[in-house]
């Protein structure tokens, strides 16, 4: 087991000017489950393949523990790429199925037996070691397949979108199983996905990438609560955060008829950069219907009501004479709000929302960076 360090690691594909991965600095702790996530083309798979030795590292270094593996052949790196599926061989026993790859690499027989036994204990397969795969249940067979990777006792497991060929329903049940197995094994794992929900549910920490550049790396909750920039704010969370660019006037942020409170520290940060606009974000659950005595608010006409029983969401658009002006400042055409289930307003109704105290997110319109307050 070991830590993994990306030290300003870059990859530039031949014939391209922009790096696919640009000076990635990332420290992955021993035993940690780290997820690389981002939209397609963000560099997540390239980053993983650089660690695996499948992509050259054009600048910087990659270390596993204290070993610099930057230019080491894949097979010497002590990593295991975990496949979406492994072949099981019907005429070989469970023990042979798990251990045969060690035989190829010349591991002594006693050592193979020890590792197979250790893996079998972890995977609850001890009593099946002498059986053929046919005699096992589906779940046991899958564990034998996992055993093939485990007996190698690698320092790091690498997984590249292992669930992408499953339908949505199966993905949900399987991701928990992989995550819990990883926790039992305690082997440092780097996992790539484009699906932010998968990332949030599986990772100890999640590393968000865009255009080859690391945007933020943190625990799922911290990413959700304090996104470092507009991109992370919009990418993490489902339904997505509502984000729009507001004008600053009289110490408040205004857009069309909408009007929200801005802390003074944020106002001064914006004026320091010589700007008079501010990007504001609020999550669907941070919106609550405002009462008449509240100042300002966000007037919304309800277009669609999604009543899920435990939750209810409304999808609407800004209301008022200046609504059209508002929509082209918004990241998405709709405003999403979570409301009390079974009490959701009806379609067509007009509701004025306000943002719960301390739950607004502010970003510099110029740089997209978060402005703390």
């Amino acid at each position, binding site marked *: 087991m070991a830590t993994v360090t990306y030290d300003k690691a870059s990859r530039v*594909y*031949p*014939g391209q000017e922009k790096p696919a991965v640009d000076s990635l600095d990332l420290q992955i702790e021993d035993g940690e489950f780290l997820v690389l996530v981002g939209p397609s083309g963000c560099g997540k798979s390239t980053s993983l*393949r650089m660690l*695996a*030795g*499948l*992509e*050259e590292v054009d600048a910087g270094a990659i270390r596993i523990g204290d070993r610099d593996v930057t230019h080491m*052949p*894949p*097979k010497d790196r002590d990593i295991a*790429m975990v*496949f*979406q*599926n*492994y*072949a*099981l*061989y*019907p*005429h*070989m026993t469970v023990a*042979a199925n798990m251990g*045969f*790859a060690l*035989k*190829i690499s010349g591991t002594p027989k006693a050592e193979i037996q020890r590792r197979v036994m250790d893996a079998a204990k972890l995977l609850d397969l001890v009593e099946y070691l002498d059986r053929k*795969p*046919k005699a096992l249940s*589906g*779940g046991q*067979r*899958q*564990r*034998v*397949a*996992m055993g093939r990777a485990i007996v190698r006792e690698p320092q790091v497991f690498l997984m590249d979108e*292992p*669930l*992408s*060929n*499953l*339908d949505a329903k*199966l993905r949900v*049940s*399987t991701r928990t*199983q*992989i995550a819990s*197995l990883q926790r039992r094994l305690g082997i440092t794992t780097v996992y790539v996905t484009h699906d932010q929900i998968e990332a949030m549910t599986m990772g100890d920490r999640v590393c968000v990438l865009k255009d080859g550049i690391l945007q933020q790396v943190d625990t799922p909750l911290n990413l959700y609560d304090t996104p470092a920039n507009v991109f992370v704010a919009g990418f993490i969370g489902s339904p997505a955060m509502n984000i729009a660019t507001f004008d600053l006037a009289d110490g408040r942020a205004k857009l069309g008829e909408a009007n929200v409170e801005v802390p003074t520290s944020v106002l001064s940060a914006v004026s320091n950069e010589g700007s008079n606009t501010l990007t504001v974000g609020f999550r669907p659950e941070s919106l609550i219907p405002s009462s008449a005595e509240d100042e300002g608010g966000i007037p919304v006409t309800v277009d669609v009501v999604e009543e899920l029983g435990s939750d209810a969401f409304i999808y609407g658009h800004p209301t008022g004479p200046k609504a059209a002006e508002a929509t082209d400042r918004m990241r998405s055409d709709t405003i999403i709000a979570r409301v009390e289930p079974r009490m959701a307003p009806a379609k067509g109704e007009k509701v004025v929302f306000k943002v719960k105290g301390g739950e607004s997110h502010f970003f510099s319109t110029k740089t997209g960076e978060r402005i703390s307050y």
Partner: protein
Amino acid sequence: MELRILASPREQQALLDLPWDMPLEEWPEWYLVALPRGISRHVVRFTRLGGRVYALKEVVQSFADREYRLLRDLDRLDVPAVKAVGVISGREAPDGEPLDSILVTRHLQFSLPYRALFARMMRRETVDRLIDALVVLIARLHLLGFYWGDCSLSNTLFRRDAGAFAAYLVDAETGDLHEALSTGQREHDIEIARVNIAGEMMDLAAAGYLDDTVDPIAVSDQVFERYHTLWDELTGWEAFDVNDRWRIARRVERLNELGFDVAELDIITDIGGRTVRVQPKVVDPGHHSRRLLRLTGIDAQENQARRLLNDLDAYAAETDQQGEDEEIVANSWVLDCFEPVMRAIPREFRGKLEAPEIYHEVLEHRWYLSEQAGHDVGLKETTQDYVDNVLRHKPDELAILGGTSEDPEQTQPFRIPWDELG
């Protein structure tokens, strides 16, 4: 959702008649070719339409579309691989439940899964030939920038090639086409192949299908060594003294021997002008088969083509036409030798082997007969004897889809989906 059939118009028509609103697993038998199949992580079935056999694989749409595109790309690049016919998407059961897409590929005629080759005990030399064929395929793919990701004997089909084999890629699901492959990608691909092949060989040994002289680990090491030798020959720099320039021609000859044409060579001379360094830049496989096709219109595998071209040379010498225009001699060879042999093969035996393979075997047979007789036996007589005593007893290889008729779960390596984890 609408049912969408992405395929050529001719095949689209035929495909329309299949029961796309049923999960592939539940298709009634009359739609299927009742031949054994390997257990794949996906449901795979074979069907016959308009005299052709097609393989159907049920898989999520993004995977079906991706593999379809990759196989089409490989086809354009002239890689020996199964041909993708189409993708059926937007499938729905009558109750409205959505069904996964289906990738349709055309079954490769006269191809043999390795399990079928091993069904009769396999000798050391045969194993070597299989491995050689697979290594040539991997090197071809790597030259084109294709990373296979799951190279194995199960993901390959073999066609006979003048006593040896030619390998075809069957499953591109894990593949990726790049501008060029890094050393790491090639190394990793070969490592995967090595482990898969060792596992497949050990499984054959455990089942009693492998001769004692074959050591699975030695075979898998051989994959590694042969690949590196071939790759170095195909791409490596070679340095020699400026007076030894003949070695440039020798390098090209060696590559031709291996079945590759050299389209471009990079030659660098040192500043002193004493040393020349040479590296092949563009090599194209199929040297002999292209030449045979050009001369005779016969489409053959590389070794078959080499064999037929040798016979053509011998024919030119025997008939004293060595000075003649190559095309003219080739034309009379087809009329005097190749076609008479083919015509002498009874129609019902033509599904046993491909035409160039039959011609190769007739030439082999002629050598044995002549040796026994102590004089040269004619082509006509040989052909008759070959049909009666050899070809008649061979199995039909036009469409063999699986190894044996036993339960595939007991005979084939099989794959477990992630969703069975638990």
